[in-house]
């Protein structure tokens, strides 16, 4: 990631080291930081990818949501950041800042079951409206062909 992004992450988050895959951002500061990145020229929305982490002996069930933005043009660079939320947590929507976040968030809501707070139109994107469950969760089995798919 470029230096200005690393500097932003260091000052806003009080971090010494920023990992190359992006720092963890508290959910409530996510819109502010993404808005600051947008001001810095990261205008192209890349991805929003949620991951389900089932409970293990050491940690409870949780989700991470990773975001990527790109500064277009010669010498293009990316800014990446992540948010960690508990199993019953929610995350503020970015659809007001980036039109592209709208569908990506709907897809993650549909497939992983993350609730994006303040999303104006949070409907399933890929699956039928009456589908039960969220296929990209790790406890969603792939070897049964009938409800409840687990």
């Amino acid at each position, binding site marked *: 990631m470029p230096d200005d992004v690393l500097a932003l992450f260091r000052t806003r988050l009080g971090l010494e080291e920023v990992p190359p895959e992006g720092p963890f951002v508290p959910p409530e500061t996510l819109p502010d930081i993404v808005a600051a990145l947008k001001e810095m020229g990261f205008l192209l929305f890349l*991805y929003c990818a949620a991951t389900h982490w089932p409970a293990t002996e050491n940690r409870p069930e949780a989700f991470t949501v*990773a975001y*990527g933005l790109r500064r277009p*043009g010669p010498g293009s660079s*990316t800014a990446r950041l992540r948010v960690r939320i508990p199993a019953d947590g929610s995350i503020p929507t970015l659809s007001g800042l980036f039109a592209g976040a709208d*569908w990506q968030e709907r897809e993650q809501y549909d497939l992983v079951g993350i609730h994006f707070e303040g999303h104006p139109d949070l409907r399933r994107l890929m699956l039928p409206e009456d589908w039960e469950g969220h296929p990209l969760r790790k406890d969603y089995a*792939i070897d049964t062909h009938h409800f409840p798919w687990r």
Partner: protein
Amino acid sequence: MVDAHPSHEPVAPALVEVSGLSLPAAITHLPRPDPYLNVEDYEPEADAMALNMGPQHPSTHGVLRLKLFLDGEICFKAVPYVGYLHRGVEKLLENRTAIQSVPYVDKNDYVSPLTGELALVMAYEALLDVEPPPRAQVLRTILMELQRIASHHLWLGTFCLDMGGALGGGSSVFLYNFRERELILDLLEALTGQRMHYNALMVGGNRHDVPPGWEEKVLATMDRVEDRLAEYEAMTVDNHIFRSRTVGVGVLDPLLALEAGAGGANLRASGVDHDLRRDAPYAAYGQVDVRIPVETAGDCYARFLVRIAEMREAIRIVRLLVSGIPEGPIGALKPPRHVNAVKLPPGEVYVGIESPRGELGTYLISDGSPIPVRVKIRPPSLHAVSLLPYLCVGATVSDIVVILGSLDPILGEVDR
């Protein structure tokens, strides 16, 4: 005499500076329609009606359903419904090893499967920190450009088919384009044995080396494809009906295009000078000077002009590279003996490449086991389709068909 297009005027367009980017002032900060408009609140001037276009409609380029709310013939709200081709590719990849995964992504963007393969394979290579040998890199670059030409041929054919018989005899442009696309598929078949789902790349290199005499065939085909491009221009650029259907139709604000995540010709036709082949080179693109065609009008005609120029540029890149493919191995890793042969280190990577439709990315998380924890494919077509609620408002139904075609979405990639 056809009307002059803004792109062809000799004066440079006025530019406006937005967050360090120079964008054409005439189409930047256009008023944006509200995609969440409540239909009940709308006061129609003529009769209001809801019209379903698709999912089985020849002009929807796959299975896309558009719910159009019309005021007379003018659309005031459009709601796309996708997912008819959802196959759970990400779930499948999260249960497959690196070696098993490649054929699945072929089916995402079935018009340009090789770019899908490269985006996935490069993500695994970034995770493993493997660099393919120079021969594989140059071969990959040639394959990507051949694929781009074939993909744009299919796009041009179907785009003109959408506009119907007005373009000089029904489906002439469509069939002519398939004639040239076949020539390129012949080249790819000679190399990979397949015409559509190639499975040509693998982690660390390519699966197939070039057969004898392939380079000469490539050069001969490029000559023929370039000759025929002039024919297409005669049938489209010089065609008054083609121009009146595309010029000024579906003008896309570059800021909206960026924020919505659009890419490829959709972005460059709106004046955004951005192409990953030049701006963040991968494979062997660093060795060639890639020229990026940019138009500033932002309409369907500008997107058409950019794609035609990209085909010419792709031909040039193929010619440059094919005569000097370096000698050496085509893979950095030993040929795998079983599916678990590639061990993944823990990590998290994102890799994006320039597919014919824009930035195609793969986001990958591994926890150190042979199968990844999360594979997320960033499809450019999904972001192109998500522009429709903005572009369709104010357009007639016949224009919506043209706007949809000009965005070049592949629904297999949207739905995955």
